[in-house]
């Protein structure tokens, strides 16, 4: 059931080199997006321990956004792939707790993609709003796992 005035709170983990700078760029460009996301800076999306996600959800967040550099562009070379792997597994696990996969979203944003980052946030806020409050202690049944969207890698030179 969805509360018409429900405003979700989402914790966003952004990597120092790309997505955090994308958020900064969105700010510099004065691009507006909903205030529901609160950002935490880590050095790399590979740093995100699945327990951080669980911690955030158990502390009252309705969703978690993980944002890293595009595959192939990670400042630490390939650690965003590890974030990708963990995210997939985490979504499957969370589904067994009854947490919808859409609540934990993985996205890529390069330091130049301020507008894209803002759009991702807006899209996620809408999705989580539609899902309703997480209500962590009262989650009763598992939900079906929708496959997470794997971003398509850009063209590779022949």
């Amino acid at each position, binding site marked *: 059931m969805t509360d018409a005035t429900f405003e979700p709170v989402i914790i966003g983990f952004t990597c120092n080199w790309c997505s955090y700078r994308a958020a900064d760029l969105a700010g510099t460009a004065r691009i507006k997006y909903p205030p529901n996301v609160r950002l935490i800076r880590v050095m790399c999306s*590979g740093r995100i321990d699945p327990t951080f996600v669980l911690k955030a959800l158990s502390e009252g967040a309705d969703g978690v956004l993980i944002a890293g550099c595009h595959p192939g562009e990670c400042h630490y070379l390939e650690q965003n792939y590890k974030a990708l792997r963990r995210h997939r597994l985490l979504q499957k696990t969370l589904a067994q707790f009854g947490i919808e996969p859409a609540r934990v979203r993985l996205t890529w944003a390069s330091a130049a993609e301020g507008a894209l980052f803002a759009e991702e946030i807006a899209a996620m806020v809408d999705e989580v709003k539609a899902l309703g409050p997480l209500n962590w202690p009262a989650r009763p049944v598992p939900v079906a796992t929708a496959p997470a969207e794997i971003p398509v890698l850009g063209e590779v030179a*022949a």
Partner: protein
Amino acid sequence: MAKQNKPERDGQERIGVYVCHCGTNIAGVVDVESVAKFAAEDLKDRGVVLARDYTFMCSVAGQELIEQDIHEQQLTRVVVAACSPHLHEKTFRGVCERSGVNPYLSEMASIREHVAWVHTDKAAATAKAKAIVSGTVERVLKNDPLEAIKVPIDAQTLVVGGGIAGIQAALEVAEAGYEVVLVEREASLGGHMAQFDKTFPTLDCAACILTPKMAAAGSHPKIHLFTWSEVEKVEGYVGNYTVTVKKKPRYVDEDICTGCGICVEKCPILVVDDKFEAGIGYRKAIYWPFAQAVPNLPVLDTETCTYYVGGKGGCKACEKFCPTVPNSIKFDQKAERVTLRVGNIILATGWDLFDARRIPQYGYGRLANVFTNLELERMCNAAGPTGGKVVMRDGQSAPKRVAIIHCVGSRDRNYNRHCSAICCMQSLKLAHLVKERTGAEVYNFYIDIRTPGKEYDEFYQRVLDDGVHFVRGKVAEVTDIPFDPAEASRNGSGALYVQVEDTLAGLQRRVPVDMVVLSAGLEPRRDSSEVGKTFGIACSTSGWFIEKHAKMDPIATMTEGVFIAGCAAGPKDIPASVSQGSAAAARVLNYIRQGELALEPVRASVLAEQCSGCRICNGLCPFNAISFIEERKVTEINAALCQGCGTCVAACPAGAIQGTGFSNEQLFAQIEGLLRDFSREPEVV
């Protein structure tokens, strides 16, 4: 050294919170006074002893405010809620350090870029700002007083690649008085520049301007030259690299050989030289790449030498005629490995030419009179296979009509997206040289004319004045098949036809020519990703080495101590390569002069007592910072190699890896603080 404020023994921290107005940037949307009040009152039980709001925290007055409070109020930690830490983290860390507080006990909370500038709802923005301050306060409570990690820097530098960028870098460092090891894969220094005839726009002879530098590098007392060698292994970290160089066997003793060249003269085996002569000239089985080779030591090619081929051990003309005593020819010479210690590495490994055979419709390899730009350079070169004469494939006749096709393999979705930066100028230069030497009608087929450098566009005007024809259009096809008998009889049987849309005239053209030159583009070296792995740096998806920042730091890489220069990082002309060589050298000299390097203390480390030896983390580090100690069955992390990404910290199932600067405790605390206002009562379902 300033007195460090130590945290109180009983755990009572004294945190100062500063909320910046940033003029009206923040204050116009966020109620900054209310945020400061929130911090002072609601976060008092978390250790906040004072909270202020001020117009510009980064100003001198703002900074002094903090300094004063630190002294008068004995603050132990500082939180500044203002703009992005990417702008002023260092500023406020500096304030703390000056006032005796460990700089890593200060944190910034971004309420400008992430709140005031992106939200319109003032109430929501203020609530979010409060949450962010709360999160940052919780986090800073868990910060450790870190010290920058200092590593000593070995004064010797490794330069990989003996082309113009590598030579320049080596000379700069050597001239400053420090030792350089210069490793070059081919038998001589010079790189691709040595193959060129004249260089644009001045039409300086390439060899004339290059060979003095080659000679200087070859004879400099501080430069240790390894040619016909490759770097096999690199271990260690910035300031302390251990490098293994493999010296491939030349089959010539470099200590005895005088470079007289009799062996080359007497060798009876002539083979096509597809390296230096770009496949249109010959060399012997024992050879040096070109006459001005540095060092002037020949090398023996075992794949074509009679002594080796067939295994019968015949000929030996080189040995027979070698005048040195003892003989310089050593048929059973083996590869040698040398281990070196260096402090910094400069990679200047250059580029490879696009393989024009990949475009079948241009006929390269099938049609005799289709050449590449590199082949034309060799042809025009006075020391080249035709003595500087521009001739057709028959080796004799001069062409009367020549087509030069720009952007072959570049700016093309099917091959390489990038622009190769130099081929427009090279095509103009070749047009000029061809016209000058043969008087032929020259046609340049281009998409755009790119002449951005100094005197470059003037050179273009000059070539226009030469009477070279320019057709704007991407060539569809080069064919030797005439459209009809009339065309065949007009142009003779050997003619080539260039089929192109002349976009300025709006017509299809079939231009009959005798010779076609393809301006093949620059590509990364075919083995660039393997080389990158050896040195611990990454290649982009197109294969060029990745610089630390495309705009602001094109010389450094993500790996401390490894620098890139020249075309290895992307296509560029000679002045840019030379500049980058000097720039890399300057950066290296910087480190050497300091004698030690201070690394950011954001690192991972293993608590050995908690490590179970499961090795899950071992495969996760692209910087080879994680190693397993067999004797003790625990994992160890090299703090100098570690770049601080934290992936291993997240992976350790035992929680045995600590990430300083972004520890689990810090992050959990920040999450709790951010959600302080959101602990909801569970709804009954």
